[in-house]
């Protein structure tokens, strides 16, 4: 049961990270007139951060 609580609390911590990553001002840092491999920076950042968050949640729950 303790382990379950720990996973839950780690997920809450991840959510807090997510709130920071997906909002001003961190979001504004990536609002640049640059492209990576032709892909706009902001678009790439949002999806990479999103994917990373999902991967971390999956890792925490399934293996952590």
């Amino acid at each position, binding site marked *: 049961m303790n382990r379950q609580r720990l*996973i*839950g609390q780690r*997920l*809450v911590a*991840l*959510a807090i990270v*997510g*709130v920071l990553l*997906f*909002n*001003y001002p961190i*979001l*504004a840092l990536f*609002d640049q*007139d640059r*492209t990576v*491999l*032709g*892909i*706009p*920076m*902001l*678009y790439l950042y*949002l*999806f990479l951060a*999103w*994917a990373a*968050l*999902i991967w971390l*949640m*999956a890792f925490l*729950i*399934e293996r952590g």
Partner: protein
Amino acid sequence: MSLGLIILIGLAYIGALFAVAYYGDQQAARGRNPIDSAFIYSLSLAVYCTAWTFYGSVGRAARTGVDFLPIYLGPTLMAALWWFVLRKIIRISKTYRITSIADFIASRYGKSTLLGGLVTLVAVLGITPYIALQLKAVSFSFFLLWHFPTLETPQLNAIPLGHDTGFYVALIMAAFAILFGARNLDATEQHEGLVLAIAFESTVKLGAFLAMGLFVVFGLFHGPTDLFTQAAQHPELRALFHFNPEPHAYENWFWLILLSMFAIMLLPRQFQMAVVENVSERHVETAVWLFPLYLLLINLFVFPIALAGRLLLAPQVSPDMYVLLLPLVEGRELLALLVFVGGLSAATGMIIVETVALSIMLSNDLIFPALLRSGVLHAEQDFPAFMLRLRRAAILGLILLGYLFFRVTGEAVSLVSIGLISFAAVAQFAPALLGGLYWKRGTRRGALLGLAVGFLLWAYTLPLPLLTDAGWFWPHLTQNGPWGLHWLRPHALFGMEGYAPVTHALFWSLSINTLLYIFGSLWDTQSVLEHRQAALFVDIFHHVARGEPPQFWRRDASPLDLQTLLERFVGHERAQAFLESYAHTRGVTDWNRLEPDADMIEAVERLLAGVVGVASARVAVASIVTEEPLDIAEIIHMLDETSQVVAYSRQLEQKSRELEAATAELREANRRLQELDRLKDEFISTITHELRTPLTAIRALTEILYDNPDLSAEQRRHFLEIATKEIERLSRLINQVLDYAKLESGTLEWDLKPLDLRQVVLDALEATRHLFEEQGIQIQSELMNQPPQLVADYDRLMQVVLNLLSNAAKFARSQVVIRMQAREDALCLAIQDDGPGIDPAYHDAIFERFSQIPSSSSQRPSGTGLGLPISRAIITHLGGRIWVESAAGEGATFIFCLPLSSSSPQEGSNQ
């Protein structure tokens, strides 16, 4: 495209949907649960993605860039909190058979009919336009497909009813929802076939959208780099790469994330799928990451499709139709049909689940309780059949209401804004629901007040201006405010201007709602029932371990009434089965002998709650039950029992603490005993050594005398003298040991008389004079001429002074000072030497029995190690105190003080 083909494909798809749902129900009927899978659970949650996602997201992305994303980022963040929040909601709902969000909120706040009704009303008013939106999307996509290449947007609400696909889709969906969502009355409201069909729909819409995305990115362009590079060459498209440049865009973004976090929990269809249809809490664990992954995938190609649309399609085309138009323009009819089916699945999934969820709320929390109260229902009526008819009528009514809304508003209202307005409506449940999960103090009136005012603010700031702007009534409301009150303009309340309407509305409605909920609750009192329900909800996980809190009211009913009530609502068979199993849990074999008490009535009420809702069940049960709060004496009796248990456990704790303390004492005593034992061993070895030295000398001398009879008289005398001295030393040693033993055991005789300490000191000095003279040590005595008299034993005190003087003689280098001093109530004697001194670490140890200072002073200490302990024992016995003041290398001063005659020596000294 030919009308026949489109209809054929559409019907084939819907046919497949019916087949899947039918298969699911068949499996369930055979006892194999087809939806007992975390994967299907996650897919069923994707009912979140509606036609708005499918068509509207691309439209939004084509206009403002990444602005379509917060609606999907919010649920991702919320999913991380599901581990605690959603699982708690599921546990509560399963335990108390809660079947809708209205039930949940009503139940939490004392099974309030009023609150349940209000929640239902808000949900129906907020969601109906959303249903209309889905019908509109279906209708729109159908006409586009049919009339292509005519790009003119058809005037949808001008089409005659008989020719409007939206109408037929509405009817088919109503049939589906009734068939699989309201076929029979089930106490758990779980619909396996329906869930399986929704999971199937989620797969179809994701597949269609991904296929479309891949076609655009790799079919129409050479991969994403090519697409973005081409778009970047147009300044107006390159601007979409950036964050929305409008003022307050980041604030709007934040509020959209927050809004969608609430929506994913509070939308009736999400509550239905995530909570009511949930098979196992374990499925939530997987859904926490699998559902966000679904959202990510379905959004991955939104922006590329939007850019492709802007690059390839004519500027007057509505961006909401890019998904469908792109394959049509490129001549990919099959893909276009797939997209149409995907959009259809997104729309139908939403319509089906939403209407089923809303119909449960409508029948259980609004209509049925009202009918029960008004007494319209007759006792002989077949309730299950009546409930089902009610449920089915609600489904049909809701869908038709949605269709009506779509027909009436038509083009006046845009796609996306309606979706957000619905989100904002259900977000009003957040304070009452989420607050009620963790805050016991939240009260019914607080929740009612917050929800009611929040709802009014929502209505005033979001849907109302939409309608007035369409020119239906009250023109110029948004520009001038009501009655010319400028500061009351619905989009700029109190002059808060410049924000998106949704941000503005959310800020006011949610914050006022929350504040009223909190303040209303804090300045309110809870009824007994409210208090109990709050405890049941908030502490749900504790009840598993500790059992539920006791009933604080008495409820009585006749067994026959109870049985009749049960049979009316759930039928004869299930009523019997329930009563038998309940009797079993109470340890009674025959349920007829059960005496209905508060616990049994609560169990019955819970069973009914699953069928007709919490509020209805309470009303129904109340009709046959007499209930009154327990009177004060009974409550005090219960409290007494509880407090006795508490007191008993406190006593136990106290005992265990005492036991711990005793154990610690014992351990300490044992340690001291071992230490003493060790010291005694050392003492014995010291003593035997001390005894052996004189004995060896005496033996050697006597042997010489014995073996040599011709020794001269001179030598003989010399040897005998030495032997005598050794024998004296031996007896002195033995006397000391005996003295000490007597002192310790308290058997020493004391001869207490008034005496003069000065005389004692002078006598002792006289006795030891030769010692000092031998060593060449000067004695300086500062004695008082007329010291106050003491009551003491002369011999014992003499022993102490002698001991201290001989110690001083042993260690002093050149001088010993003896000082006598009278204090307030004591007479003190200090003997100071100028020897090597004693390290402060040993100041206590030297008075300990059997201990000597370790050979830090390099020479082996002479003596028995008993002199100082004996001195201390004597002085302590006489009521005084002895100590040493010294530092290493600075000489030592031994001081003892004895009380003056007024304070007599210890009691019972002459035993």
